[in-house]
C-alpha cells in the first residue's frame, strides 16, 4: 500500500515534469528543424539550425529588437532600483506618521490594473511629446518611464531595510557622513543581495513587458522582442523553425538569470510576502 502510494507520487511528478518541460524541448528541437518537419511533428534535433537563424536575421530586424529590449530593460532596472530603494529606505529609516500615511496611499496603486490607466498614460505622453519629443510617444524612454516606479518595489525595499542594522547608520553619522552619503556609502554596499533579487525581477518584468510597449511604440525601429514575437506569431504562413529560434533567443536571458541566480530569483519573488 505504501509502495503503491510512492509509485503513484513519482508517476504524478514525472508526468508534471514532462508537461512542464515539453514546450521548452519542443521549442529547442523545432529551432533546429525545417518548418515542414515541425508541422509533421518531428521530435528529434535536425540540421537546420543555422538556416533558421540566417532566415531570422535576414527577414526580421531581431538585432534592433534585442538592442531596444536590452536598453529598456537595463535602464528600467537601474531606475527601478534607484528610486525604489531610496523610497524604501526613506520610509523605514525616517519613519513618521505622515510618511506612514503616504506609504499606505502609495500601496493602493498596486490595486490599479494597468489596462485602466493605459489610455490616460498614452494621452499624457502625447502631451509630453509636444514639449519634450525625446521622451514622448514612440520613444524608448516612454516605454519604461511610467513602469519604473512601482509600489511593489518600494514595499520590497522597505521590508528589507528592516533587517539593516541601525548601528551602521549611527557609525556613519559619527564619521561625519551626510544622510545621503550614508545611503550610498553604507546602505547600498551592505544590501547587495537585496539589490540583486530586485534587479532580477525588475529586469524580467521589463524584458517581458508587452501591453504598454504595444501601445506606446509604433515605428519598427523601436520594436521590442515581445512585440516582434507577437508579430511573427500572428503571421498567416508561419515559418516555425525561424519563429522558434526567435522565441529561444528571447527566453535565453531570463532562463540564464534563473539558472545562475536561482537563490536571488526566489528571494526577489518572495520579497513581497515576507513579514
Amino acid at each position, binding site marked *: 500500500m505504501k509502495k503503491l502510494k510512492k509509485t503513484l*507520487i513519482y508517476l504524478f*511528478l514525472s508526468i*508534471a515534469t514532462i508537461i512542464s*518541460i515539453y*514546450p521548452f524541448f*519542443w*521549442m529547442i528541437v523545432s529551432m533546429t528543424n525545417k518548418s515542414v518537419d515541425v*508541422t509533421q511533428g518531428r521530435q528529434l534535433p535536425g540540421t537546420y539550425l543555422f538556416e533558421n537563424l540566417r532566415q531570422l536575421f535576414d527577414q526580421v530586424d531581431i538585432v534592433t529588437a534585442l538592442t531596444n529590449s536590452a536598453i529598456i530593460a537595463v535602464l528600467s532596472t537601474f531606475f527601478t532600483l534607484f*528610486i*525604489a530603494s*531610496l*523610497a524604501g529606505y*526613506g*520610509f523605514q*529609516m*525616517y519613519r513618521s506618521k505622515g*510618511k506612514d500615511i*503616504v*506609504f499606505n496611499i*502609495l500601496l493602493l*496603486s498596486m*490595486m*490599479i*490594473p*494597468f*489596462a*485602466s*490607466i*493605459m*489610455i*490616460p498614460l498614452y*494621452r*499624457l505622453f502625447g502631451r509630453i511629446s509636444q514639449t519634450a519629443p525625446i521622451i514622448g510617444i514612440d520613444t524608448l524612454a516612454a516605454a519604461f*518611464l511610467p*513602469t*519604473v*516606479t512601482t509600489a511593489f518595489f518600494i514595499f520590497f525595499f522597505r521590508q528589507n531595510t528592516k533587517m539593516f542594522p541601525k548601528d551602521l547608520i549611527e557609525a556613519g553619522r559619527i564619521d561625519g557622513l551626510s544622510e*545621503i552619503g550614508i545611503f550610498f556609502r553604507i546602505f547600498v554596499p551592505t544590501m547587495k543581495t537585496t539589490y540583486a533579487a530586485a534587479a532580477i525581477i525588475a529586469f*524580467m518584468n521589463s524584458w*517581458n513587458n*508587452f*501591453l504598454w510597449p*504595444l*501601445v506606446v511604440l509604433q515605428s519598427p525601429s523601436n520594436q521590442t*522582442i*515581445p512585440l516582434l*514575437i*507577437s508579430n511573427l*506569431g*500572428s503571421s498567416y504562413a*508561419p515559418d516555425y523553425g525561424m519563429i522558434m529560434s526567435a*522565441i529561444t533567443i*528571447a*527566453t535565453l536571458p*531570463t*532562463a540564464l*538569470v*534563473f539558472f545562475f541566480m536561482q537563490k536571488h530569483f*526566489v528571494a526577489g519573488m*518572495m520579497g513581497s510576502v515576507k513579514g
Partner: protein
Amino acid sequence: MKQLTNKNSIGWLFVLISVVAITLFYFYPMFDALLLSFQSGMGANLEYVGFDNWSRLLNDPTLKQALINTMTYLMIQVPLMIVLALFFSVILNDPNLKFRGFFRTAIFLPAVTSLVAYSVIFKYMFSVDGIVNQLLINLNLISEPIAFISDPVWAKVVIILAITWRWTGYNMIFYLSALQNIDRSIYEAARIDGANSFQQFIQITIPMLKPIILFTTITSTIGTLQLFDEVVNITSGGPGIQTISISQYIYDLSFKYTPNFGYAATVSYVIVILVVILSIIQFKVAGEKE
C-alpha cells in the same frame, strides 16, 4: 528637536521621486480616466456627454462577452492552479522524496518564460496540425484533429491550460517556503492521534497556509482580471469575440476600432471595480473562517 525635524525633512527627500512618479503615473491617470468616462470623441475634440458612456456599459454585448469570458477563466483557472500548486508543494516538501530539487526546478521552469513567447508556443502546439492533435490521434483518442483555437469552448480550454502551465510552479514556490515554516512536530502529534495524510492536509496544512493562499488567490485574481498577452497571442480574442478579455476590449476600443477613449476609459473602471470587489470578498471569506 531641531535636528529631529531636519531628519524628518531629509526623509521626505528620499521618498520624493517615488511619490511624484506614482502620483503622475498611477493616481493622475485614474483621475483622468474618470474625467474621460464622461466624454466622447477623439483626440482633442472631446466633449462632455454626461453619463452616456456609463449607460452604454449596461447594453454592450461585447463587454458582456468579455465579462463572461474573464469570469470563466477566473472561476476555473485560479482554483485549478491553486489546488495543483498546493498539491505539488505538499508532495515536494517531503524530505524523503528523491530528486526533490529536480522536480521543483522542472515544475517552476515555466515561470521564466515571457507571456508572449509561451502564448505563441501554446498556439502552435494546439493548432490543427499541431503536436497535441498528433498525439491524440496517435493514441487513438480522436480520429479527426480538433480545431482547438477556432472552437469557442476549446479555445477557452487552451487559454486556461496555458495560464495554468505558466503559473502553477510560481505559486508552488510560495507554498513551499511557507511549508518550511511549519513545525514538523505538529504533524508528528497528528499522526500519533491517528490522522491520515489527507486529514493532516485539511486540518493542519491548509489552515497554516491560509495567509499565503489568500495572498496568491488575490494576486492571481488581479492578474486574471487584467489578462491580455495570452488571449491576444493565442486566439486574438477569437473565434469572433468568444475568448476576448476585458483588457483586450479596452485596447481594441482605443487603438483597433474607431478610437473611443471616453468609452474605453469607462470600461476600464469596470476592471477597477471588479478588482476592489473581489479582493474584499476574498478577504472577508478568509476572515470569516477564522
